[in-house]
């Protein structure tokens, strides 16, 4: 592209070249932006479709083509007892899996960041591998395990075991990244002021890594409530929300599924907003001290 204007000689060519180059650059820069906006639209289209079709009034049992607008599914989103029961099972399962995996995963993250021990590499490996394993393989191998042992019977317990298993790795990774960016002098200060290790942890470490733990818990909850593949292998007769949808897909999907999915969407967005707000507050709080310190050091240097 730079070669073309160079062939035209003369005084005006320089300004023409930069003008053309500038125009070309403008087009190109904006082309990237246009592509990005198109991709954003692409990402959001299915969400809009789900939202719009939650107001649909389909004639048959399938909610795939638009028939007409109605509010009846939004006014009674929990009228389908089977669906409501499945949703409640999912929430209960996700809450339990989140609590267990967050506690256990946070402990692992602390051990990995704060302690030197033999077997670190293998522990890291143990944490990465489940994330690099396809869900079918995880689900199938757990089912083999339960089948061979014959216990526990497939159902809520086996689902809980499976969900905690695949959540742990993600919790460790999230909490670990928070612990790595952690100002350890705060803990040393607490120790210098006579606090024992437990008090230091409770009053200094825990509040500071809490946003990380909260983020990890939210991720675990989201992974658990959305899991279909692993649950499909290990559920027995227990039905979660995704399992209900999969079962219903063969015999017709009630519009309430779209309504409940949308309610779940808005609830998650609200929780995300709250978490971001909390994290910003926490960052502001921890940022005050080092900034003042930096100003104190910088001022005499300038003078």
């Amino acid at each position, binding site marked *: 592209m730079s070669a073309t204007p160079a062939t035209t000689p003369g005084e005006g060519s320089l300004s023409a070249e930069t003008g053309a180059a500038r125009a070309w650059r403008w087009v190109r820069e904006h082309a990237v932006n246009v592509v990005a906006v198109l991709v954003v639209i692409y990402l959001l289209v299915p969400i809009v479709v789900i939202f719009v*079709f939650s107001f649909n009034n389909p004639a048959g049992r399938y909610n795939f083509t638009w028939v007409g607008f109605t509010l009846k599914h939004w006014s009674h989103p929990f009228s389908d007892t089977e669906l409501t029961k499945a949703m409640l099972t999912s929430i209960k399962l996700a809450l339990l899996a989140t609590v267990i995996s967050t506690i256990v995963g946070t*402990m692992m993250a602390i051990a990995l960041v704060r302690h030197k021990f033999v077997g670190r590499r293998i522990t890291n490996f*143990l944490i990465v591998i489940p994330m690099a394993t396809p869900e079918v393989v995880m689900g*199938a191998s757990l089912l083999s395990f339960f089948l061979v042992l014959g216990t526990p019977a497939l159902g809520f317990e086996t689902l809980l075991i499976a969900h905690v*298993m695949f959540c742990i790795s993600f919790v460790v990774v999230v909490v670990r*990244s928070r612990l790595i960016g952690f100002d350890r002098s705060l803990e040393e200060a607490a120790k210098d002021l006579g606090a024992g290790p437990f008090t230091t942890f409770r009053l200094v470490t825990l509040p500071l890594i809490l946003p990380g733990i909260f983020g990890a818990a939210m991720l675990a909850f989201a992974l658990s409530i959305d899991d279909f593949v692993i649950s499909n292998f290990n559920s027995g007769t227990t039905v979660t929300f995704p399992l209900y949808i999969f079962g219903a897909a063969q015999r017709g999907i009630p519009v309430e599924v779209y309504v409940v999915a949308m309610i779940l969407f808005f609830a998650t967005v609200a929780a995300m907003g709250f978490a971001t707000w909390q994290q910003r507050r926490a960052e502001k709080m921890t940022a005050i001290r080092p900034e003042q310190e930096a100003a104190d050091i910088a001022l005499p240097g300038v003078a």
Partner: protein
Amino acid sequence: MVAALRRRTPAYLLLAPGALWLIIFFVIPLYFMAKLSLDTEIPGTLHYRFTWEWSNYKEALELYDTQFGRSFIYAGIATLLCLIIAYPLAYVIAFKAGRWRNLMLFAVVAPFFTTYLVRTLAWKTILSNESPITEILHAIGLAPSGHILYTGFAVIAGITYNFLPFMVLPLYASLERIDVRVLEASKDLYASATSTFWKVTLPLSLPGVVAGTLLTFIPAVGDYVNAEFLGGANNRMIGNVIQSLYLTQSDYSAAAALSFVLMAVIMIVVFIYIRFAGSEALMGQEAV
């Protein structure tokens, strides 16, 4: 020695519950599955006997080699499409979005907030014959003529959509980490925007490319929801086969053998990648 042991005890105590959970419910089940894949069924019962039955592998692979190959082809195409679609978006979010950055990042993760299965059902609507999107795709020649739903095109489209955020987030993370001064230096040294991209930006974002490719490809190969909802009988993937062998046909040995081959092939791919990129790429970027 004793003191050293005592100092280390808290580390092992902190690790124990999580590590044991992963060993008992992830590692040991893999061992059980390996064993099951070499078992023979005692005729007429649902019981199995361990006999080093390698023919399970041979038979399963001979029977399902099409689905196996198809899974890797579909996942490969989808991963490539994800990379092509995700890179401009990640680039704009990292360098050009300004005050729109958080909103765009929200758009990237927003699909995760809708249930996976419902999202995939929405694609059934989007790609149906009556949908305006289908008409547009036909008009610009992007889709094969005829109906789109229940074809490989629909399955690949679904996989691409569902795993796109896994590509965007690591790409964004590695692009965002690039020091803008390096890009300015390249410009100061009279590199064109194109050569700055190919010689500076792209190589510096390679860890993100590697992590994103892995995070998209691994779940895509094993996926069976998209093939189940959007594909037809000719688009079944290895995940569908494993699922139906386990859950409806109760042919556990063949299913276990297929799972193991799938796992093995993916592990080989991952190890090649990790040697090439360092394990931190997988560990550090997964955090998003």
